[in-house]
């Protein structure tokens, strides 16, 4: 049976060259970068080489890159670290409603610690209006955190425009670029951001290796204390193989960048068009053009996401769902709710994210397999039955 992995927003496979680059650092080159002897220096050099490659991918300087364990840690570090280190200036933070929970939850903690928070609502396509950010900034504002692209609906935010506003007003600006880095060009100079989160396993690097860019001169309070590593900003012995892997993945991404977009865009559009042609009553979530090149997010009316996901799994197709039933909370996606997707429709949402290993045949296979699954579940659905009866009478 064909296996089609369309869940690259969840994680990606590690690129074979990345694995190869990492391997020596588990065994022969196992030293601790903090040691002064040759073994330590060898490891230290590898970490610094990776720092340079990671910096190069986003147009940063190597000393502006701090390695962490995950995108979640990077976002926690940025939000809490920047807010606390700059609280003498004020106590107001601005975020969007559609941020990842690794931004929203730290912000909640800060609220309990006395900070005031403004959450900006997106429009129906998930875009945050830079003017709304400008209006929300007060004398007390210390930090704006708006994601580069949304991990669920794929909408790319006008980060450079927001960056120009925060720069003019002298407010720190962090962007969670975990869903974007490696898929679209990201340049911290062009964006005008003071901090940016990225994660290796999102773009063919290993899990457990991520980074936070912090612009030189910007104060940030360490969140993991007790070590001199990462210039004293993040304690803990470095995950040398992971960091080497992240560096290699960054190097490959930088080299491949133009090709990634040109390869993925037509495939994404082919998948979307194929589904639209074969399936009625569906809603495409997010922005039609200002979106990640590999992201397809669709709500299929009258059917439930987990059921679709399970039937697709049986056909060897692996996707994610925005449905309440697939989350532990039994709540459907907060992102879909914020862009005004009806709660019942949100429960019938699939997130399909393509990768560089996805072929045109894979996309054809999904276009062949998904429509009968939706049809079968609709024939089983009382909501569909009611809709058909209503259409007949009206």
């Amino acid at each position, binding site marked *: 049976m064909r296996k089609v992995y369309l869940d690259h927003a969840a994680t990606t496979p590690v690129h074979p060259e990345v694995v190869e680059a990492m391997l020596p650092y588990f065994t022969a080159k196992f030293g601790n970068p903090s040691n002064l002897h040759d073994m330590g220096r060898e490891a230290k050099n590898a970490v610094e080489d990776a720092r340079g490659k990671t910096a190069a991918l986003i147009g940063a300087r190597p000393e502006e890159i701090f390695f962490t364990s995950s995108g979640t840690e990077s976002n926690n570090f940025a939000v809490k670290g920047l807010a606390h280190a700059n609280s003498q200036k004020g106590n107001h933070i601005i975020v969007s409603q559609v941020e990842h929970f690794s931004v929203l939850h730290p912000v909640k903690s800060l609220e309990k610690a006395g900070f005031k928070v403004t959450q900006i609502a997106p429009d129906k396509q998930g875009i945050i209006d830079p003017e709304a950010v400008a209006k929300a900034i007060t004398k007390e504002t210390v930090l704006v955190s708006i994601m580069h692209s949304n991990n669920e609906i794929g909408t790319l935010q006008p980060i450079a425009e927001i960056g120009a506003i925060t720069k003019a007003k002298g407010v720190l600006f962090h962007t969670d670029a975990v869903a974007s880095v490696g898929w679209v060009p990201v340049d911290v100079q062009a964006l005008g951001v003071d901090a940016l989160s990225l994660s290796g396993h999102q773009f063919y690097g290993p899990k457990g290796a991520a980074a936070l860019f912090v612009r030189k001169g910007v104060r940030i309070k360490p969140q993991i204390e007790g070590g001199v590593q990462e210039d004293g900003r993040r304690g803990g012995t470095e995950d040398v193989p992971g960091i080497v892997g992240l560096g290699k993945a960054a190097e490959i991404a930088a080299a491949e960048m133009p090709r990634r977009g040109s390869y993925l865009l037509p495939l994404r559009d082919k998948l979307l068009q194929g589904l639209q042609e074969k399936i009625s009553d569906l809603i495409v979530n997010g922005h039609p053009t200002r979106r990640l090149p590999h992201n397809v997010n669709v709500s299929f009316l009258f059917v439930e996401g987990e059921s679709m996901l399970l039937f697709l799994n*049986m056909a060897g197709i692996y996707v994610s769902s925005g449905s309440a039933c697939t989350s532990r909370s039994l709540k459907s996606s907060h992102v879909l709710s914020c862009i005004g997707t009806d709660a019942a429709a949100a429960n019938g949402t699939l997130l399909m994210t393509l990768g560089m290993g996805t072929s045109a045949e894979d996309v054809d296979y999904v276009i062949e397999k998904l429509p009968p699954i939706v049809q079968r579940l609709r*024939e*089983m659905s009382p909501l569909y*039955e009611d809709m058909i009866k209503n259409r007949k009478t009206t």
Partner: protein
Amino acid sequence: MEQYSSKVMEHFAQPHNVGEIENADGVGTVGNPVCGDVMRLYIKVENNVITDAKFKTFGCGAAIATSSMVTDLVKGKTIDEALKISNAAVAEALGGLPKVKMHCSVLAEEALKSALDDYYKKKGLASPVTMPAESGHEHEME
């Protein structure tokens, strides 16, 4: 999330008794699309015995499997026997359900009780049906 039992997957992949019954003696619809599951259960009753049961469900794997199982369990039962079918019995017949999916078995019991209630009302009789106390989702985690 906990895995589904093989029995649940069997009933999800090939559900029994999907469909509608024309001129059903009792129909019950329970649940809410916002929460992600709606069940509609139809029963046919002859001489106080449920001779046929069918369902339509919008919901997750567990919702479809519990609908399939409850319609299996109820067929051939008398009304009094059907009234005693509990959500626990439905879950047990499926080899258990993940904890977060137990509400689907509650929904199946509610759908059955609602169809039985409708049967009494259609007959012009006083309904002895009491809906199960535990209902809805637990919303404690994010």
